[in-house]
C-alpha cells in the first residue's frame, strides 16, 4: 500500500498544464486523487509522472452562463453539493454529489476527475446524463465539447484522448424540474449497486420531458430511453410509473457480481426507479 516513485509537477495555468502533458505524454492528470492514488497504491496503475491540477485556477468555479451552468472541472463534490445556483438550476447534480463516498472523498474529489475516471458505479455520471450535460475538453490540439453520453464509453473508458483534459462541465438549466437521485450503496465500497437519477418536467399535469439515468447496473451509466418514453406526454399515475420502472433496464446487459446477481440488480433498479418516481409526485 505504498506508492512507487513518480515524477510530480504542479502547473499554474491551463496553458502550462497542456504544455507539460505534451512534454510528458505518459503522465496522468491528478485532480482530487480519490481514485488514481488508491489505484497506484494497489499497483493497478503506475504512471511515471503526475500533473497535479490543483494549482490551475481556470479549472475552478461555478458560473451562470444564461441557459447553462458552467462547472469548473476541479470543482469539489462538496462544492457541487452545496452551491446555491446548482441547487436551484441543476439540483440533481447536487443530490448525486451529496451521495458520493464519504466526507473526505467529497472534500477532495472533483467533478472532472470523477467523469474522467468513468467508474461504472460512480454517482455523478447518472446525474449528468439525466441533465444532458456536456463536457469541455482541452489538449494541445485545441478545445472541443462532447456530451456526457458520448464521453462515457465503458468501465474506466472515455472518449478522451490520453493527453486531453476535461476543463468544465456545462449543464443546461433544469430550474423547476422535479429531480431526485436514489442510491443503494454497496456496504463495503460505498459505490452504487444501483443509482437512479431522475429529472421530470411537467406542464399542465402532463410530463413534458422525462430523464431517467442509471448507474451501477451496466458497464456504463445509461439513459433508460424506453422508460422515459412511457412517461412522456402522460398524466402520471401509479400504473404509468410502475410500467416505466419495469422498463428501466430494457436493452441493457445487467451486471452481476458476488454481492448482487444480475437478476437482483434488475429487480433493485426497477424498485428504486418506481420509488424515486413516486417520491417526486
Amino acid at each position, binding site marked *: 500500500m505504498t506508492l512507487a516513485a513518480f515524477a510530480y509537477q504542479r502547473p499554474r495555468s491551463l496553458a502550462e498544464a497542456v504544455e507539460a502533458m505534451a512534454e510528458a505524454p505518459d503522465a496522468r492528470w491528478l485532480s482530487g486523487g480519490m481514485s488514481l492514488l488508491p489505484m497506484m497504491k494497489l499497483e493497478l496503475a503506475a504512471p511515471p509522472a503526475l500533473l497535479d491540477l490543483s494549482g490551475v485556477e481556470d479549472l475552478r468555479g461555478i458560473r451562470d452562463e444564461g441557459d447553462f451552468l458552467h462547472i469548473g472541472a476541479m470543482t469539489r463534490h462538496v462544492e457541487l453539493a452545496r452551491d446555491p445556483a446548482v441547487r436551484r438550476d441543476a439540483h440533481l447534480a447536487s443530490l448525486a454529489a451529496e451521495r458520493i463516498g464519504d466526507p473526505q472523498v467529497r472534500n477532495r474529489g472533483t467533478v472532472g476527475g470523477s467523469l474522467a475516471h468513468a467508474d461504472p458505479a460512480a454517482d455523478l455520471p447518472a446525474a449528468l446524463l439525466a441533465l444532458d450535460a456536456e463536457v469541455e475538453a482541452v489538449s494541445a490540439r485545441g478545445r472541443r465539447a462532447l456530451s456526457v453520453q458520448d464521453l462515457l464509453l465503458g468501465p474506466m473508458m472515455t472518449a478522451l484522448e490520453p493527453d486531453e483534459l476535461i476543463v468544465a462541465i456545462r449543464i443546461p438549466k433544469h430550474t423547476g424540474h422535479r429531480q431526485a437521485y436514489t442510491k443503494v450503496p454497496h456496504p*463495503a465500497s460505498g459505490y452504487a449497486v444501483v443509482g437512479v437519477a431522475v429529472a421530470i418536467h411537467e406542464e399542465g399535469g402532463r410530463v413534458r420531458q422525462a430523464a431517467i439515468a442509471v448507474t451501477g447496473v451496466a458497464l456504463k451509466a445509461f439513459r433508460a430511453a424506453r422508460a422515459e418514453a412511457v412517461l412522456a406526454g402522460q398524466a402520471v399515475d401509479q400504473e404509468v410509473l410502475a410500467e416505466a420502472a419495469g422498463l428501466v433496464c430494457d436493452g441493457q446487459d445487467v451486471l452481476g457480481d*458476488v454481492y*448482487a446477481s444480475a437478476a437482483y440488480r434488475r429487480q433493485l433498479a426497477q424498485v*428504486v426507479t418506481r420509488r424515486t418516481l413516486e417520491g417526486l409526485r
Partner: protein
Amino acid sequence: MALRGQSVPRLEDARLITGRGRYTADIQLAGQLTALMVRSPHAHARIRSVDGDRARALPGVHAVYTGQDTKGVLNPIPTAWLPPGSDLATTDHPALAWDVVRYVGDAVAMVVADSLAAARKARDLIEVDYEPLPAVTGVTEATAPGAPLVHEGVPGNRALFWHAGASTDEVEAALRQAEVRVRLPLVQQRLIPNPMEPRAAVAQYDPSTGKLTLWATSQNPHIHRLLVAGVLGLPEHRVRVIAGDVGGGFGSKIACYPDEVLVAHAARELRRPVRWVEERREHFVATTHGRDHVEEVELGGTRDGILTALKVRARANLGAYLSTAAPGVPTILFGLIVNGAYDIPHVAVDVEGVYTNTTPVDAYRGAGRPEATFLIERLVDRFAREVGMDPVEVRRRNLVAADRFPYTNALGITYDSGRYHAALDRALAMLDPGQVSRHREEARRQGRLLGVGVSTYVEMCGLGPSEVAGAVGFQGGLWEHALVRVLPTGKVMVMTGASPHGQGEETTFAQLVADRLGCSLDDVEVMHGDTDLVSMGWGTYGSRSTAVGGGALSVALDRVVDKARQVAAHTLEASVGDVVLEAGRFYVQGVQDRSVAFAEVALKAHLAWSLPAGVEPGLEAQASYNPTNFTYPYGTHVAVVEVDPETGDIHLRRYIAVDDCGPRINPMIVEGQVRGGVVQGIGQALWEGAAYDRQGQLVTGSLMDYALPKARFFPPIETDALETPAAHNPLGVKGVGETGTIAATPTIVNAVLDALAPLGIHNLDMPLTPERVWQAIEASGWKAAAGGQGGVQA
C-alpha cells in the same frame, strides 16, 4: 474517593487519538532494513523451484530467504492447543513453504532490502515455479470421499475429532422420546478480523549479548517469546518481545506467525534490524480468520416448551495449518457451552476439525462461544415456533433460575452466578411492547415486515484455572501475574501480565490502584507488553484480563497494603490490627487525629531508618493469581428490524443490550466494549463473510469487497447492565470484551426470521444480504400487492 465504578476518561486516549501512540510500525532503528514476503498465488501447489538470484543481485537487497534456506534452520511453528482425546493430526507449519504451498498467502520467500522501494522491486524478480494441485476450500468438499489432501499424512483432511457430553446414543434416545424435535442446518461463515492496525514486526539482534529483541503486534508477548525462542532455537532468556501500542487484535494477534519468526531470523543473520509491516490486502490472506462452521443441530423438548435434548454435529474449517490456539476454539471454547443459558439435561457434541486450502482459522472475538450461542439461540426460536409459543416464553421456561447457581451444565462446566430472568425482564421493559405494536403497524402500512429477535446468552471467559488449561490441553498456564511497585514518593508502577490492545486496562487497572491506595490516577503508571519488564503473563484474550489480571493486581495490592500497614502501625505506635487505610491515610481505628499518609509510609519503607522487626525495606509486592473457575457473563439482547420485501433490505430499527459482567470498574469502557462487540456481531449477521472461489482464491480480499460495519449502519444502541458478582474472584468481575459478538449475531438473525416467518421462511444463511433475503422471499411465493403495498398479515 471511590474510583472503582467511575466512568473516568481513558488515560491512553490522549496519546492514541493525537497520533502519539507507539505502534510496532513506528519503531525506527538505526540501520533498519525492510522485509517483504512473497506469497503463494495458488491455494495448493507443489513448489518446483524458487529463484532469488536476480532479486539478490539488485542494489540495496541484503538477502532473499526461501523455504530451502530456512528448512532445518527454523523449527516448524507448533500449535499450542492439543485437546486430549481428539485424535489431533498435527502438521508441521514451516515458516516458509519449501515443498508445497497450502493456501493463497502462504509465504514462500522473504526479501530484505534497504528500502521498501528496493524490496518491492526485488520481490517482483523472485521467480517461483509452481505446479498447481487440486484444492479444497470448504469442509463439505474437503471431507468428501476422494477429496484432494491438504497434507499427505492426514487422511480425509480430518485434523481432529472431538466429542463432549453424553453419548450420542443417549441423546438420540432422548430426542426420540421428545414430543417435539427441530433440526437446523447452520452455516457460520468465515470472517476476517481486520483490526485497525494490521500486523507488524521489527527485530533487532545484539551479537555481543546474543539477545534478540522483537517488537510485535501481539496480544500475548510472553507466549510469543516462548514460541519464537523455540522456532529460532534461541534460549528463552535471550529473547525479548515487546508489544507496544497494539491497535486491536480480536484474537488475530494471539498466534505466532511465520512473518515475525522470519524477521527475527533475518535480524540474527544479517546483524541489522529488520522491519516488516503487513499491508491491508496481505492481512486478508495472511492473518488468521475466524468462525467457519457447518453444523447439523437438533433440539427436542415437550409441547409445553421444556427443552430436554440437544445434539450438535459441527464441522469446523481450520484452514491449511493448525494455528496457535486453533484446535481449542471449535472444541473446548465451543462444545462445552452449546446449551447456552438453558438447563438441558441431555447434550452431545461432535466436532470434526478439517484441513482445507485456506488461510488458517483461529480465535476471533468470542472464539467458539459465538458459534455455540448462535446455534442454541437459533434452535430455541425454531423450537418455539414449532410448539407455537412465544420464543421469550420458551426462554423463560428453560433459563437457569437464579437460585440454582453455581450451576453445572450437562457438559460439566459450572456457571458461577447469574440472574438470567432479571436480565430478560429488564431488556423487555426497555423494548416496550406497546411501541413495538405501533412500529409493526406502521411498517405494515408501508409494506415492510417488522421482526423482533431475542437472545438470552451466556458465555464462559476469564480463561482460566491452570488445572483446567492442562485438562483441556492448552499449552500454557492461564494464570496471571501482577507487580505493584510503590516508589519512595508514593507514586505507583504496575506491571501486569495482561497485554491490553484496546481494552483500556491502563485506565481500569489505574482505577483499581488509586481506589485501593487512595492516590490519584495520575500517580499510577500501568506497564505491560514487555517480557523484560513484566515477570510473566499469558496475555489478553478470552475476556480474561480484568478477571484474571485484575485478580492478580488485587492480590498484589492487598500485599502492598498489608506491608504498608505494618510500617504505618510502627510509625503510629499502634498495633497492626488497629490500623486502617482510608482515602490515602492510615488511621488508628477510632482515633481520627492519629494518622499517616500512604505516601509518607512509602518513604519510610524505602528509607528503612526505622522499620518494625522482620519487615524488609522497600514497598513492592507481586502476585500470581490462578482463578478457580471461568467467569460467566450473560445477558439479553433484543433487536427490532424491518425487512423491505421488494428489495430484501434490512433496516435496523432498535438494538437493546442488557449485559451482566459483574461489578463494572469503568462503566464507560464496558459500554464501549458492548457497543463495539455488538456492531461486530451484527457485522457477521448482515454484511461480513469471506468467500473463496473453486480455485481457492479469496474473492472478498479487500475492504472494497468485504463489508465491515460502519457507524452509519446503526441506530443508537440502547444499553443497560446488571451487576451480579462472580463469587470466586477478588473483584467479582466477569469480563465483557466478547459478549457483543456472542449475543448480537443470533439476535439479529432471529429478528429477521421473525419478520419473515409469515412467509414460511425459517432459516437463512449469513450474511443476510439483501439479495439473499429477496431470493428467499421470491422463493416463498410472496408477491407485493399493487403499488408495492405489502400483502402480508404481519
